[in-house]
C-alpha cells in the first residue's frame, strides 16, 4: 500500500495546533487562580520528561506506529488487548472533543439548534478529513495554521489595551500546592496527550527527528498557552475566570479599538473551533487506525467515515451538559489518562530498550532486530 508521509514542519504544526486545541476547557480557573500561568510552565517542565519517552519510542521504531510496536513487544494476543483499550480511550476522548465543539457552538450562539445537528455536522467535517488520510490532514493544517496564527496575533495585539498586570498579583499567595495540583491537570490535558501522535509516528518523514518534533511543538504550544492564560487573567481577573463558561471567548468580546472595531468575538470563536477541530481529527484518525489494525484492514481510509460518525453521535449522550464535561475533564481525566499517557509508554519504552539490548548482545542478525 502507498505509504503516507508528512514532513517535519507539517508534523510540528499539527502538534502545536493539537496542544493548543483544547484551550476552551483549559483556560478555566483552577485552584491556583491568578497563578495559573505558573502552573502551565510547571506542566511544560514535567511534560518535557515524559515527551522524551515518546520521542525515544518513535526514534527506536522508525516507520512503525504504536499498534505495531505493541504487537512486536507484547505479542499478538496481549498486544491486541492493549490496542483495544487504547482504541477505546481514543474513541472516548475523540467523542468528548466533538461534544466540546458542539456544546461550545450551541452555547455561544446557536442555542435553538438541536445539538445532534451540530454534532453530526462536525462529524461530517472530521470524517472527510480522516477519510482523506494523514497527508491531507498535514496539508490542511499547514494552510489553516498560518491563518490561525495571524488571527490570534491580531487578537492579542488588539487586546493589549485591556491588560492589567495587577491582576496577576499576588504571585504565589497561597503557596505552591494549588499550583502543583493545577499543573498536574494541565500536564495531562494538553501536553501528555501528545502520546496520540505515536499512533502515526511511523508516517513522519524519514529524515525528521521525533525529538525535534516533540520538543519544538511542546515548547511553542506550551508557551503560547501560558501567554494565553496570562492574557486572559490580565483581561478579566482570576475571579471571573471561573465564573464564565468560556473565558477565552469572553476576552475577545472585550476587545475594542476606537469606535469601529468591536464585537469581534466571532472571529475568536472561529479560531478556537478550527483548533479544537484539529484535535478531534487527530484523535479520531488514531482511533480509525487502531480499529483498522485490530481487524487487520490494510486500508484504514475505508472505515474512517463510520468510525467518526459513531464517535460524533455517541458524543451526544456522553455528558449531560457542558459544565459536567468540563468538570469531568478537570477532575477525572488526568487520572483516567494515567494508564495511557504514562504507564503504557513507559512500559513500551522499557521493554523496547531491554529487548533491543538483548538482541544486540546475542545475535547481530536477529530478525526481530531487523524488523525494527
Amino acid at each position: 500500500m502507498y505509504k503516507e508521509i508528512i514532513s517535519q514542519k507539517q508534523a510540528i504544526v499539527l502538534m502545536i495546533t493539537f496542544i493548543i486545541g483544547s484551550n476552551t476547557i483549559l483556560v478555566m480557573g483552577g485552584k491556583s487562580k491568578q497563578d495559573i500561568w505558573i502552573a502551565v510552565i510547571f506542566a511544560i517542565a514535567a511534560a518535557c520528561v515524559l515527551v522524551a519517552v515518546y520521542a525515544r519510542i518513535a526514534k527506536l521504531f522508525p516507520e512503525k506506529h504504536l499498534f505495531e510496536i505493541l504487537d512486536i513487544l507484547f505479542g499478538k494476543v496481549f498486544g491486541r488487548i492493549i490496542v483495544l483499550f487504547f482504541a477505546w480511550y481514543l474513541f472516548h476522548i475523540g467523542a468528548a472533543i466533538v461534544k466540546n465543539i458542539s456544546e461550545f457552538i450551541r452555547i455561544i450562539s446557536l442555542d435553538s439548534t438541536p445539538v445532534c445537528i451540530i454534532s453530526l455536522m462536525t462529524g461530517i467535517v472530521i470524517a472527510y478529513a480522516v477519510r482523506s488520510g494523514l497527508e491531507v490532514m498535514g496539508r490542511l493544517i499547514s494552510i489553516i495554521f498560518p491563518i490561525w496564527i495571524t488571527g490570534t496575533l491580531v487578537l492579542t495585539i488588539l487586546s493589549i489595551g485591556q491588560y492589567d498586570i495587577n491582576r496577576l498579583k499576588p504571585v504565589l499567595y497561597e503557596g505552591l500546592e494549588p499550583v502543583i495540583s493545577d499543573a498536574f491537570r494541565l500536564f495531562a490535558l494538553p501536553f501528555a496527550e501528545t502520546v496520540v501522535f505515536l499512533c502515526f509516528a511511523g508516517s513522519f518523514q524519514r529524515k525528521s527527528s521525533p525529538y525535534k518534533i516533540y520538543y519544538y511543538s511542546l515548547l511553542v504550544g506550551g508557551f503560547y498557552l501560558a501567554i494565553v492564560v496570562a492574557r486572559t487573567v490580565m483581561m478579566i481577573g482570576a475571579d471571573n475566570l471561573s465564573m464564565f463558561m468560556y473565558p477565552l471567548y469572553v476576552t475577545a468580546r472585550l476587545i475594542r479599538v476606537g469606535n469601529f472595531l468591536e464585537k469581534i468575538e466571532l472571529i475568536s470563536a472561529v479560531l478556537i473551533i478550527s483548533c479544537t477541530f484539529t484535535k478531534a481529527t487527530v484523535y479520531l484518525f488514531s482511533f480509525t487506525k487502531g480499529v483498522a489494525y485490530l481487524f487487520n484492514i490494510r486500508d484504514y481510509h475505508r472505515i474512517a467515515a463510520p468510525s467518526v460518525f459513531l464517535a460524533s453521535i455517541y458524543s451526544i449522550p456522553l455528558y449531560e451538559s457542558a459544565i459536567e464535561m468540563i468538570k469531568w475533564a478537570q477532575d477525572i481525566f488526568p487520572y483516567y489518562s494515567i494508564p495511557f499517557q504514562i504507564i503504557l509508554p513507559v512500559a513500551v519504552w522499557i521493554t523496547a530498550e531491554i529487548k533491543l539490548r538483548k538482541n544486540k548482545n546475542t545475535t547481530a542478525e536477529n530478525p526481530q532486530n531487523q524488523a525494527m
Partner: protein
Amino acid sequence: MVLTSSLVIITALIIIDLIPIYRDQQWKAFFVYCFFLTIFLILAVLMEYNVKIPSPAEPIRSIVSFIFGFEQS
C-alpha cells in the same frame, strides 16, 4: 431529528463508501463498516425515542475515585 439526519448520513455513506468496498470485495472492511453503521443507527433510534444511553463518564469516575481514593461528589 436525530433519526432523520442519521438516515440521510447513512444513505450517503452507503452510496459513497460501502458500495465501492463491496465491489472491491474487501470483506473485513465491509463487515466492520456495517457493524459500525448498525451501532450508529441503533444509537440514533434510541436517541430519537429519548432512551437514556449509558455514558462511560460515571463508571470511570467511580473507578478512578476507588483507585486513587479521593472523595468526589
